[in-house]
């Protein structure tokens, strides 16, 4: 911030062009189905674009490198937290299979819905009721 850097207009136009091109790439790549890699690819392209915006539009490239370090470190920790959270929600029930049942089986919401397990298969209502009653006594 102490240094006074003026970016030439040519650089801004080149950056804008790159961003528009990468937006087109994001849209184009969304027409292909890569399974669970869809989100990884979309977020990868988005991260490339975000880096360009931060480096050129937000002047991090010419700024004190301490600011760049803090910015990258906070993004790294955000990535770590999101990845570990996804490991939990994505692979829940992968080791010990689990059956879904209502927390409160007297809730009016469940009157209209058939009970299903995590794979969407119907669940025997009596066994689910039994689980619920056990919980109630604790």
């Amino acid at each position, binding site marked *: *911030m102490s240094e*006074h850097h003026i970016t030439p207009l040519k650089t801004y136009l080149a950056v804008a062009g790159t961003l528009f091109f990468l*937006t087109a790439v*994001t*849209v184009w790549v*969304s027409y292909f189905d890569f399974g669970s890699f*869809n*989100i990884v690819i*979309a*977020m990868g*392209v*988005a991260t490339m*674009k*975000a880096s360009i*915006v*931060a480096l050129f*539009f*937000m*002047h991090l490239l010419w700024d004190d490198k301490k600011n760049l370090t803090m910015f990258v470190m906070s993004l790294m920790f955000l990535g770590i937290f999101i990845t570990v959270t996804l490991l939990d929600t994505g692979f829940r029930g992968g080791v010990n299979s689990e059956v879904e049942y209502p927390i409160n089986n007297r809730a009016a919401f469940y009157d209209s819905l058939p009970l299903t397990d995590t794979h969407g298969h119907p669940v025997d209502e009596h066994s689910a009721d039994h689980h619920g009653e056990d919980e109630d006594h604790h």
Partner: protein
Amino acid sequence: MTGLHGLHVAIGMGLIAWLIYATAKGNLNSEYYTPMEMIGVFWHLVDLIWIYLFPLFYLI
């Protein structure tokens, strides 16, 4: 929620309009440019957020 967002955008546009006015009057120059820098960086945060929101909202 939409109205709140609209108000937020309007405030941002107002700040940028004020930047244009202040620059034209010469109140912002090579000696004093902190508001330009701060508002510019904050506005570009919108780019950063929407770069991620666009594929998450509309493509995935």
